[in-house]
């Protein structure tokens, strides 16, 4: 057990040292500014994340005009909310329904709608998901504990170009009395990738 931990530790130390050396070299040569690197990291830690996408989804559920716009021109509709950042330059929204379930992948690398979902989770970037999503999407969904009804067909979107996909999940049951803000709290990151469906809200007494 100890030797395993030690292996991991020395591995991390090695890459940590190499990255540190690279950053200092690039700084010395004037190719990067370390404060700017901090800013970039903090942007994705604090400002840009799945809360952006959840806002888009909740608005699509409550605002008919926005919903129509999202179907017709997702880029303009999403940008109108201020979510214009990189890896969201060209957007497409795909809407789940009882008949159709959408699933987003990038088999060739890790294309992901950063502007609305932030940085991708490790599983999204890793070989098990990237290899299996296109050939066995039902198996992938089972890995996430999702089992679709028999009549639901699956549409997989392989992000091979610069178009980024946002899944608009179905609005959960028992949420008629919730406003946009409360609804956005129910939207999970995975439901906007297509690896989760949203559970009905607890019935209010």
């Amino acid at each position, binding site marked *: 057990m100890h030797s395993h931990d030690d292996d991991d530790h020395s591995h991390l130390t090695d890459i940590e040292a190499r990255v540190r050396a690279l950053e200092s070299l690039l700084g010395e040569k004037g190719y990067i500014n370390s404060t*700017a690197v901090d800013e970039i990291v903090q942007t994705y830690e604090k400002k840009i994340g799945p809360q952006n996408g959840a806002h888009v989804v909740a608005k699509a559920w409550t605002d008919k005009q926005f919903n129509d716009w999202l179907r017709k021109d997702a880029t303009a509709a999403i940008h109108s909310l201020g979510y214009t950042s990189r890896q969201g330059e060209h957007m497409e929204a795909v809407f789940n329904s009882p008949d159709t379930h959408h699933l987003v992948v990038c088999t060739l690398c890790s294309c992901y709608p950063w502007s609305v979902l932030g940085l991708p989770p490790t599983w999204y970037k890793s070989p098990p998901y990237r290899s299996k999503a*296109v050939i066995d*999407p039902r198996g992938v969904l089972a890995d996430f504990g999702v089992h679709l009804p028999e009549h639901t067909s699956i549409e997989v979107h*392989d992000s091979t170009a610069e178009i980024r996909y946002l899944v608009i999940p179905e609005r959960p049951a028992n949420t008629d009395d919730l406003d946009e803000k409360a609804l956005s709290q129910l939207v999970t990151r995975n439901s906007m990738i297509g690896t989760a469906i949203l559970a009905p809200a607890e019935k209010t007494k």
Partner: protein
Amino acid sequence: MNGGADLGGMMGFGPVIEEPDEPNFHAQWEERVLGITVALGACGQWNIDQSRFARESLPPAIYLSSSYYEIWYRGIVKLLKQNHMISDKELATAQASLPRVDECNALLPENVEATLMAGSPANRKSDQPAAFDVGQQVRTINIHPETHTRLPRYARDKTGIISKVHGVHVLPDTSAVGQGEQATWLYKVSFDAQTLWGDTRVNEQVNNKATNKDKVHLDLWQPYLKADTTL
């Protein structure tokens, strides 16, 4: 290229396992690699297609056994060396000895927000008409270039339907190898799962007819496609 990154349809990697409450970064070096990669991208010495090709052309055994930020680290080191911005000697000694490439000026903190918010749109203006319309049947070409392409192996030489015309976008195949943007029409092409994976494979998964309707959509550029008039 037929490299370690072209994973669609490969088998044997096991189930998809999600880490509960996963943080954006598992160690500080990962944060630095993300930030350095984005900051260097703003320097304009390479484009996103060159950057993807640098990663996917790592030897498959290395690509598949490296963590994602390790792949990014290897990718930027390769690009920095190719562009004569750093040398192995500099990396080993952590001391600058090569002359500076003056065209690369560091992205400054005050410009980070504007740079990230602006992004890098890939669409371009063109007066060339689109060759294909929505609803048209097309067949993908059969290519195996050693250079960059965004036509994955599993979707080559396959029949699909144009389901959307996206506009005119930079062609990665030429952009990645310094042959210019050669912007051309980009389409969403929809393939039946059965066309890609065969009857047996698809029917094995679920014993119902729904699977026959399953589709895989890819965004593909005009040079990847030929009109297909067979029924």
